[in-house]
Structures are given as structure tokens and as C-alpha cells.
């Protein structure tokens, strides 16, 4: 019974296997954690995955300096602490950080604008990896460029570390609005639209045919309350990333559970009201207009 046949023909790291894990995360919440303890709190609260990092975006923003891939020891400790998938971030264009993360056994890599970019022209060729990548976007063209490079999952950029959902809303509306406008467009119009937004024509055609992105699309960047999560779900995203919003809040465990419930019951205001009760203070939050332009993270990536 236990004998392995050489004729099994098992294929690892295929597109279907990469995009498939993102399908399994849908309707779920992925939480930023900086310690194994936080990872356990996130898992207990019902997170579908955790993002292992050294500093949450709010602290990266406050402390400044170059933000890099986290210490592999920390990532390994988090991998060992939980049974749910573990993601980790590498810098835009830093394919060696990505190789290291792959060798650690992380389940997903976030090529993230939250870290300081390592290449100001190129993103990573993500097709070269066996594990899948998620990338941020502000609009449809950017989303399709990342998919062309091999991203098997997309998220909005939002403005990480602000606790302010306004940029995530802007980016999600930009993507879904642009997809709606493709409805009824002829093939020649799709080619010109692909040129205009800087997207590969074949991926734009596929998007037009499906009426949605060809991969799973999560919301990220500024989500701090159950109502924020439900707002993004009602705007059409497939799931939620919460960065600083949980562990910068007064009661992380209660807030994490509430955001998980809000992501499932996003269209039930009665359940949302119940979930939003007595959570303690949310993270303080930042007005986007008060942030100097050069400190905005969403503009990183091309």
C-alpha cells in the first residue's frame, strides 16, 4: 500500500496549485503578526492565514528607515506555532529575499510596497517560483501587470499602517469600476484599452469574459474595524488583509474575532452590529492628507 509509484505524475507549483490556495482563503481574514504568540491569537480568532513580519506597517511608518524581509528565525518560529498558512513579505524586485522565503517553507509571498523597494523598474518574475505570490494594486492595469509577472493573488494597496480605509476603497472601486466598463467592449476596443492601462491584452480579454479578475482579489491597507471589512466585501473583494488594525488595537483578540465574523456575514447589518459591540479602542489612525507625499506607500510599485 505505501509504495510510491513513479507513474504518479504529481505536478507541483503549477498555476492551478498556486491560484488554488488563494481560492481556499476566500471569505477569510489574513492577519499581520510579529510574534508566535500573536500568530496563535490570530489562529484562535479564526484567521485563514497569518502574515509573518518584524514590524506592522504602522511601526514601519513611524520608525522610518529601510524596511526589509523579516528575520528568518522569526518566520520559522511563526510557521511552527500555527497550523494555518503562513505568508511573509519581500521587497518589490528583491528576488533573493523571495528565494529565501521559499526555502523557509512559507506558503505565500507578498511582494509588498510596505517594505522599501529594491528595484525601481522591475517586479519579481514570479513564474520562476514554485510557491505563489500576492501583490498589491491601485487599479486594473497594475493588477494585470502583476498577474502577467506571475502573481496568483491580488490585493488592493490601500495605505498600509494608517487605519484609514479610504485608499483601499479608492483602489477597489478603481478595479471593479474598470472591469464593469469592459462589459460589451469589442475585441479591438479591448486591445486599445489594454494599451491605455498598460495591461496585457490577453489578460484583459480574460477579465472581460469573466467579469472579474482572473485571480482572487483581497482588500488591504487601512482596514481597522468589522464595518471596514464588511464594506470592502460589499464592494466586491474576496477576503481581507488586516495589518496594524488588530494588534495596534486595545483588545486584539476580540477585534480579530469580530473582523472574521464581519467578513463572513458582511451583508448582515444585524450580525455586524452585534460583532462590533464592546471591542475597545480601534487603532488611532491617520488622515491621508496629513502624510507627506514621499511617505505614502501606495505609490511604490509600477
Amino acid at each position, binding site marked *: *500500500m*505505501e*509504495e*510510491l*509509484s513513479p507513474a*504518479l*505524475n*504529481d*505536478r*507541483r*507549483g*503549477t498555476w*492551478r*496549485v498556486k491560484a*488554488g*490556495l488563494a*481560492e*481556499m*482563503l*476566500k*471569505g*477569510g481574514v489574513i492577519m499581520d503578526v510579529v510574534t508566535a504568540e500573536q500568530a496563535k491569537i490570530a*489562529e484562535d*480568532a*479564526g*484567521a*485563514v*492565514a497569518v502574515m509573518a513580519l518584524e514590524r506592522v506597517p504602522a511601526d514601519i511608518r513611524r520608525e522610518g528607515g529601510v524596511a526589509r524581509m523579516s528575520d528568518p528565525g522569526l518566520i520559522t518560529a511563526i*510557521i511552527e506555532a500555527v*497550523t*494555518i*498558512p503562513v505568508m511573509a513579505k519581500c521587497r518589490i524586485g528583491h528576488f533573493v529575499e523571495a528565494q529565501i522565503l*521559499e526555502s523557509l*517553507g*512559507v*506558503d*505565500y509571498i507578498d511582494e509588498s510596497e510596505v517594505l522599501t523597494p529594491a528595484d525601481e523598474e522591475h517586479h519579481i518574475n514570479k513564474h520562476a517560483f*514554485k*510557491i*505563489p505570490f500576492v501583490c498589491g494594486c491601485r487599479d486594473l492595469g497594475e493588477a494585470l501587470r502583476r498577474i502577467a509577472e506571475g502573481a496568483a493573488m491580488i490585493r488592493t494597496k490601500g495605505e498600509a499602517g494608517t487605519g484609514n480605509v479610504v485608499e483601499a476603497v479608492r483602489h477597489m472601486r478603481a478595479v471593479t469600476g474598470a472591469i464593469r466598463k469592459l462589459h460589451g467592449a469589442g475585441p479591438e476596443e479591448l486591445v486599445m484599452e489594454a494599451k491605455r492601462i498598460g495591461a496585457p491584452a490577453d489578460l484583459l480579454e480574460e477579465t472581460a469574459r469573466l467579469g472579474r479578475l482572473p485571480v482572487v482579489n483581497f482588500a488591504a491597507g487601512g482596514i481597522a474595524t468589522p464595518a471596514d471589512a464588511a464594506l470592502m466585501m460589499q464592494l466586491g473583494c474576496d477576503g481581507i488583509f488586516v495589518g496594524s488594525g488588530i494588534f495596534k488595537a486595545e483588545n486584539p483578540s476580540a477585534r480579530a474575532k469580530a473582523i*472574521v*465574523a464581519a*467578513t*463572513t*456575514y458582511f451583508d448582515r447589518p444585524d450580525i455586524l452590529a452585534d460583532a462590533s459591540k464592546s471591542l475597545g479602542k480601534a487603532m488611532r489612525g491617520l488622515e491621508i492628507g496629513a502624510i507627506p507625499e514621499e511617505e505614502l506607500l501606495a505609490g511604490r510599485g509600477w
Partner: protein
Amino acid sequence: MSAPRRRVGVLALQGDFREHLAALRACEVEGIPVRLAADLEPVDALILPGGESTTMARLMDPVLKTAIQQRSAAGMPVLGTCAGMILMARDVQGGRADQEPLQLMDIKIRRNAYGRQIDSFETEVESRAIGGSGPAVFIRAPQLIERSSHIDVLAVHGGLAVALQQGNRLALAFHPELTPDRRWHQYFLSLDGEAR
């Protein structure tokens, strides 16, 4: 032979329930998302999708959980894929102490038994249930470690039982819903239901 199944529920707390609903549409059957106990009433059968079993177990309302267990005991057909298979098991190894499965089948399961995402794979699996070989996607998949004699093995891959049946309960370690092949769903829809 019972009347054709008209409405099939898909547990829609988290995971790839949209793919199961699309598979049901392709089989010309109405799929109904199930989040609360009331959603279960009109359905003739239930699918537990792929996703994170810890998340689904945490989100499952106790009233819905009891309703699923009672309907299953009364003969409602249930299909579980990957995380759904974990939810159907009597016992889960590598799970969490507070994660009580639905216990619909006499099987013991090990979570994430193939390893991490880098070990996930797609392949072909052969079974009499689908009349030959069909595509199967294994994503951080569970493995069977124990089963009672009431369990039929419908498919074996790499020496491991990956498709199991007990009466009209069907558990698959893989995801047929991520492929365009609908034969596993058709097989599930052919199973006899409860007398209602």
C-alpha cells in the same frame, strides 16, 4: 431511486464555496449558500467546501452544526472536499483541541499531511465512481490515517485512500471543484437522499 435532487446547499462560511456553486450550476442543480441553520431547511444535500477548517469550525453556529448532524443522521447526502473532509471526520490529528469536527464519518484524518504549500500538487486520480481517471488538485491536503470497516475506498493515490464513502457521505482529500471535470459532483448527486 429517490427523486432528483433539486437544491444542494454549500456551506458558505469561508473557502471555495463559489467553485462548488458553479459546479452545481454546470450539473443543472440549484446551489444554495448555507451560513445559518435556517439556510439548511430547503436543501436536499450539503457540500462542505475547501478552505481553512479551523476558520470554518470557529465560524459555525452551534445551531447549524447540530442541524447538519441531525440531517446527516436522517440521511441527507453530504460531500466534503479537503477542509470539508476534515470537518466530516470523527477525529482530527494535527488539529486544534477546541476544533470539534462534525463527526459524520468514521475516519481519522491528519491535517496538512502532505506538507506545506510547496508540496501541494495536481494529478490524476482513478475511481470507479467517475468511471475512470480524472483531474485532482491537492492543496495542503489532509490524509486518512484510520477508518472503520464501514468505509468504502473509492480512490487511492500514492498508496493513500483519497476518496471515501460511508453510505451517502462522500469525503475527498482533493478539490474536484477547481477543475472543469464535473464527474465527482455528478456522482455525489446520484447518491440516494433522505425520505422527506
